[in-house]
């Protein structure tokens, strides 16, 4: 399960291969295979309003256990039976409750990593940040002791040190590549972002190799910027942000919007790597990891505090994104089955309008459940929203907001 670079480098350094069921949920959705698994989970008593990834995984696992093998219809070869479940308390409840519920089907041990989520003011209290970082590092140490027992081998600390460094190197290039998207026209569309970000977020590959890949991407995007090549075939008429999780089963929707000149230039905060952080002087790799993940979540807090914005992650960063990437509008995608990616959307819409005069379009849907997303209806709103974006562009100019 995604753990925002807390546990993955540790697993890598101990030669544990990782499979991410939320990523697989998106795969099942894209292949049209999710529906049967969702129904399976429901038949087992899991309420239908819960996370689509989780229900897909629970339904899939129930079927795998029933068959005694990977279900033949499973897309891309399916997911194997795990020997360890690594859950995380970061961002949502599903991400530990779901793995706990897998105990109904699997006898794999389960470990939960913690990531503190202080409020802005509380996180900035004297000693709070250091205390939280100490707690994360301590938890990672406990996780390593558990892994050593489970696997019957010791951690190679030198290797962990290198893995942590290459993880950060990987994300540094990925961050730089995304910074280039501020250019007009924007050289990379969210669709390309979504297909590239799994390498950073789901660390299934070697982070050193991924760093090389992201570096190549950086070079390619840079040359597009230098040559003023945009991501769209059509001229870039509108620059947009997309919040939060996309409808993986209906990505063609974005191509249709692209034909209208809608360029999605920035997206979900939680999919983006942390802004670079200088950790050269921190010799303990676990402390580096702890500082890094904590910085990902709380790195915006000082500025949020100055702006008197009390939701410092997931809400405040969009004020910066929309301003820095000069967005004309924002598409909000509330999910019936994911509180975490939905809770903040109304507040963000309100803040963007009040502070930056940027309008939002709300399109309800789901990440996995096809039934909940209606692309035709969403597209029918595009024209009216263009008028709204034009209107607010004028108002921003009048207010001296700069784009």
């Amino acid at each position, binding site marked *: 399960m995604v753990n925002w670079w807390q546990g993955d480098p540790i697993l890598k350094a101990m030669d544990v291969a990782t499979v991410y069921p939320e990523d697989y949920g998106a795969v099942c959705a894209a292949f049209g295979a999710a529906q049967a698994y969702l129904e399976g989970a429901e038949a*087992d008593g899991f*309420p239908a309003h819960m996370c689509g990834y989780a229900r897909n995984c629970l339904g899939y696992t129930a079927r795998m256990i029933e068959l005694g093998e990977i279900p033949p219809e499973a897309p891309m070869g399916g997911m194997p039976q795990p020997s360890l479940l690594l859950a995380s308390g970061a961002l949502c409840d599903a991400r530990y409750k779901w793995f706990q519920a897998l105990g109904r089907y699997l006898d794999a041990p389960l470990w939960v990593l913690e990531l503190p989520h202080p*409020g802005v003011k509380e996180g900035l209290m004297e000693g709070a940040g250091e205390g939280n970082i100490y707690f994360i590092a301590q938890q990672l140490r406990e996780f390593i002791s558990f892994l050593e027992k489970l696997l019957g081998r010791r951690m190679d600390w030198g290797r962990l040190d290198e893995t942590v460094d290459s993880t950060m190197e990987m994300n540094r290039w990925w961050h730089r590549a995304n910074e280039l998207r501020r250019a007009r026209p924007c050289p990379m569309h969210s669709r390309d972002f979504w297909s590239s970000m799994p390498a950073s977020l789901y660390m299934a590959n070697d982070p050193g190799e991924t760093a090389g890949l992201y570096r190549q991407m950086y070079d390619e995007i840079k040359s597009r910027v230098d040559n003023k090549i945009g991501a769209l075939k059509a001229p870039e008429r509108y620059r947009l942000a997309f919040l939060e999780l996309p409808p993986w089963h209906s990505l063609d929707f974005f191509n249709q919007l692209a034909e209208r000149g809608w360029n999605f230039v920035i997206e979900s905060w939680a999919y983006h790597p942390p802004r670079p952080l200088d950790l050269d002087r921190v010799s303990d790799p676990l402390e580096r990891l702890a500082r890094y993940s904590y910085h990902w979540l709380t790195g915006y807090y000082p500025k949020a505090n100055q702006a008197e914005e009390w939701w410092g992650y997931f809400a405040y960063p969009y004020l910066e994104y929309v301003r820095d990437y000069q967005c004309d509008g924002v598409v909000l995608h509330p999910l019936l089955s994911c509180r975490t990616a939905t809770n903040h959307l*109304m507040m963000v819409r309100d803040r963007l309008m009040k502070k930056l005069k940027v309008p939002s379009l709300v399109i309800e849907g789901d990440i996995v459940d096809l039934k909940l997303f209606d692309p035709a209806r969403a597209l029918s709103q595009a024209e009216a929203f263009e008028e709204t974006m034009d209107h607010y562009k004028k108002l921003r100019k009048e207010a001296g907001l700069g784009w």
Partner: protein
Amino acid sequence: MAQDRGMDRAKAIYQDRSQRAGELKAQGKQVIGYLCAYPVLEMMTALDLVPFRILGDMTEPISRADACLPTVVCPFIRSALDLALKDRYQFLDGVVMAHSCDVAEKTAHIWHSYLRPPYFHFIDTPHTTGDSAVKQHKRLLKDFQKTLEQLAGRQLSQERLKEAVKAHNQQRALVRELYGLRKPDPPLISGVESLEVMVSLMSLPVDEGSRLLKQVITEVRQRNSGPPKKPARLLIWGSIIDNSSLIQMIEGLSANLVMDDTCVGSRFYWPDVAATEDPLDGLAHRYLVALKCPRTFRQADPNKASKDYQADLEYRFGYLMEYAKEWRVNGVILQSLRYCDIHGYEVPQVKDYLNSLGLPAIYLEYDYSQAALAPLRTRVQAFLEIIGQGNF
């Protein structure tokens, strides 16, 4: 009736929760609202601040909250926020929230942003229960102490905190005593009355609440107008119930609700705070480890190389068996508010456990509205028939 003064008072407070808070404020007290079961009450009490539980109102349609909290989240929390946006919590001098669940955590920031209470503190309660998490929790409580001291304008001494621990433990003991009066058949007090008492306790300073409880306990022991005997003795488990209509619907059928595992009920009051040299140790442990809400991750043996599901269920839900035995329960209602992930994931697992005990259970999901209760009634009725026939 003069002899029911305590019960009547509890009912009156249940019906108008803010009235006493207003009187206390007029006497110069500061009233602090808190959401869910995780803000540490003893620390407020010790500084002479009055903790006041923030609840929703099922009878009030949600209108204002739509603008800042989407419809796909816990309707209880949306209702609570809606009331605040309609100034129904205007009397609060401050608000404390905790990371009880994802939505509560996020709502804390929304509440802070939109309502801007004069004092606000968020406790980022950890999810796990190991030693490092308990230490982290204690550190967070120290930060909470700092901001509370600033609000109260004085230092919190260990002695005062220990006294507050005692006072709250005493109230918990009284609640357990009151719940004990539901063990006889028929129970001496109904589920509806019990909920009214719980809600009233959460609206009063601890000592005043305990005095009320004593009075209620005495009255209940003496009265001869308790609930009638009925074939089903039920336990209700699940997400928050702060309005008696669901229970009223169940008790209107052939069932007595004799025990609960919900957070305006036994879950909130059951565990005591251990007397520790530094009271923050006892508090950090009680609120993180001893309080048994599914929002906290616990498992039988975290260090084992494989999982024994049944052992895990015993570890997590074993207390339900004790409840079932002591309160002679013959059926369980599992209920969850729609969009409550914490309880939603738990349901099939609690069902597995109850199955292993041979206890019949039914799952109800509802959306915190009176309208939702009518269809549920039919389902509960069918369930009670099954219990009546012993067909499980």
